């Protein structure tokens, strides 16, 4: 089996890798936005809770949380499918990091613009939707890219909960062909390519939606 | 005795001629000012003299040796030259004292106590000994300037180069710089000063050279260059500079700005109607 054939065999798992990465990244964005927006409401008890949340989920290792969710929860009667387990662990942790990114991005929105919108008579929700979020998302792009690539690099853990991603393919291939070094080298190259694609893709998207003078 | 002799220095970059045959001498203990509009190649000229930039042609003889040759010990050369940068370029992470002792300790291998003592003397020479333990961020522009000069003097160089010493300072501070130059001149320190500041060029008191488009167009005593028979290019430069200077500086009666131009067709510079 040539190196090229190894590569092709492994690409079978790429779809799952991407699925896991996308699912966990989206979870992260949702969680992060939720936390960031809630923390802006100002209630001090809420800030304390959210602060504890972000601290806890940035202090616990991904693997440990994944095992808690997938192998631990059944003890409490809750069985979670593998992908959901990934989302509840890697996704939520990504959310904790993204919450910080989004908070900083929200703070970068010019307060006087919000004031002007209030003066115009727009509702709080409208201001959020029409002014703050469009700007804040653009400010958050570098931080989001950073976090999404981190999610990609922790996605191989999916193999421990049975998802047949690239890592899992590699392990079974390695066991049968005993060509471990070449296989894992190929895996590294595949992940690197996905990483490059992801980064280039998001930057291209950012360029399309760029507003002159906002982030330049 | 001639300390520095620059002969036909040429530099081209990116197809543009920056220095087009610059020649001049600097004697021991002398102060010379190179004056000219921005972009005339003044700063580049200084940088060629200590090989921070390499010229394409010409000769530079410093302390009797050709310094542009292939076998020149650049580092040794640079230690003989004290360079004071336009933006002072003090090391941000070091105190004023540490800025001055850095070269003493790591180039001269001086023990700490001796280096400190020497540095404090140089700082005192610049009236900065009280600020020895402050960081550059805690000093004003003029104070940073003095520390930069002390740092340059500490290694006991053969010559001091000043690159636009007043452009990062406000006009009041510029007068301080002139005082420092006078002080050092009285101590017989050899100095080469590059500037587009008219006031500095006149008040410094040394011979002035006018550099424009890479060539020296005139050299002489202050009054020759600023007088009524001056080169027309220089006068054109004056008009420009004077207009800018008047816009920036509050005109005070004590300022010697108008002295030599009674026949200037555009009207006396310091007259109250302006």
């Amino acid at each position: 089996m040539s190196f090229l054939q190894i590569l092709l065999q492994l690409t079978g798992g790429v779809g799952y890798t991407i699925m896991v990465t996308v699912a966990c990244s989206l979870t992260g964005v949702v969680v992060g936005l939720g936390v960031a927006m809630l923390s802006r409401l100002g209630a001090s008890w809420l800030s304390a809770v959210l602060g504890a949340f972000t601290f806890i989920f940035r202090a616990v290792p991904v693997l440990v949380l994944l095992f808690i969710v997938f192998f631990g929860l059944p003890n409490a009667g809750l069985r979670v499918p593998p992908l959901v387990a990934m989302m509840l662990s890697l996704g939520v942790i990504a959310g904790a990091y993204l919450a910080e990114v989004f908070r900083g991005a929200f703070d970068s929105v010019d307060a006087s613009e919000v004031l002007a919108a209030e003066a115009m008579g727009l509702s709080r929700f409208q201001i959020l939707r029409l002014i703050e979020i469009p700007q804040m998302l653009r400010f958050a792009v570098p931080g989001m890219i950073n976090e999404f690539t981190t999610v990609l690099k922790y996605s191989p853990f999916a193999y421990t909960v049975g998802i047949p991603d690239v890592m899992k393919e590699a392990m079974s291939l390695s066991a049968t062909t005993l060509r471990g070094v070449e296989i894992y080298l190929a895996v590294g190259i595949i992940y690197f390519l996905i990483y490059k694609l992801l980064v280039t893709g998001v930057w291209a998207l950012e360029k399309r939606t760029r507003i002159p003078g906002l982030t330049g | 005795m001639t300390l520095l002799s620059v002969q036909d220095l040429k530099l081209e970059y990116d197809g543009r001629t920056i220095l087009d045959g610059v020649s001049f001498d600097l004697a021991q203990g002398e102060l010379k000012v190179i004056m000219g509009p921005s972009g005339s190649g003044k700063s580049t000229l200084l940088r060629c003299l200590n090989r921070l930039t390499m010229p394409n042609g010409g000769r530079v003889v410093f302390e009797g040796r050709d310094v542009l040759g292939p076998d020149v010990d650049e580092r040794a050369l640079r230690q003989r030259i004290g360079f004071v940068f336009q933006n002072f370029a003090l090391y941000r992470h070091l105190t004023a004292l540490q800025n001055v002792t850095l070269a003493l300790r790591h180039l001269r291998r001086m023990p700490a106590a001796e280096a400190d003592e020497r540095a404090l003397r140089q700082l005192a020479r610049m009236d900065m000994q009280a600020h020895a333990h402050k960081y550059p961020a805690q000093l004003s522009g003029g104070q940073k300037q003095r520390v930069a000069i002390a740092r340059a003097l500490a290694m006991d160089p053969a010559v001091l180069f000043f690159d636009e010493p007043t452009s990062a300072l406000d006009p009041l501070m510029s007068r301080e710089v002139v005082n420092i130059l006078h002080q050092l001149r009285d101590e017989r320190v050899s100095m080469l000063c590059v500037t587009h500041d008219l006031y500095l060029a006149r008040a410094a008191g040394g011979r002035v050279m006018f550099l424009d488009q890479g060539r020296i167009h005139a050299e002489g005593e202050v009054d020759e260059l600023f007088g009524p028979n001056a080169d027309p290019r220089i006068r054109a430069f004056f008009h420009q500079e004077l207009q800018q200077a008047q816009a920036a500086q509050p005109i005070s009666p004590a300022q010697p700005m108008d002295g030599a131009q009674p026949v200037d067709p555009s009207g006396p510079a310091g007259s109250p109607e302006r």
Partner: protein
Amino acid sequence: MISFLAQMLEYWPQVLSGLGNTLLLAAVISVTGLVGGVVVFYLAISGGPLRRRLTEGYISFFIGTPLIVLLFLMYYGLPQWGPKLTPFTVAVIGFTLNVAAYNARYLMTAFRGLDPDELQAARAQGFSDIQIFQLVILPQVMRLSVPALTNQVILNLKDSSIAFLIQYAEFFAQMQDLAIRSFRFLDAYLVAGAVYLALVSVVVVAARWLERRYVLPGVRRAR
């Protein structure tokens, strides 16, 4: 939970040794990763364009690939070619390569914030390139990068749990063992999580202290 904790107490030697191994690994790779990072950083800013390109390529590659792939390559792949390394060795090599790349990237970011005039002034004073690196560049970039570098230490601590997958007998591996023995998976993993939380908290406190101590008056901090 109480019965689990009781069981855990019974096995305290293993748990303690596991904890020790976690801290050992985290400490070692933090040091080697930092030293490696400084070396890579030096290579990235000096020398000719080829060397700089290669170094950037190294940094890019090790930031863009999952750590676990590197570890598996060395632990499960290499033995098929001959050399069989211990989990600890594999972990140290793999982590160091990875962490050094990240640290080099942080230092490079800080380097871009330096005043180029200071570097010119150092050259004008007659310092050699190595001296300029040692006396002017490194002290500044290190201080500017304290937040990023300490954050990396925290990551090292958390990521040490990955070594469990290559059979390194660190803390999480021991807790996994206990979980299987006692069938109390949830309890075991929750306790593991709590312990990591405690460890990270200690490092965070140390990091904040370090940040306060090394901030230069008036100097901007890198994010």
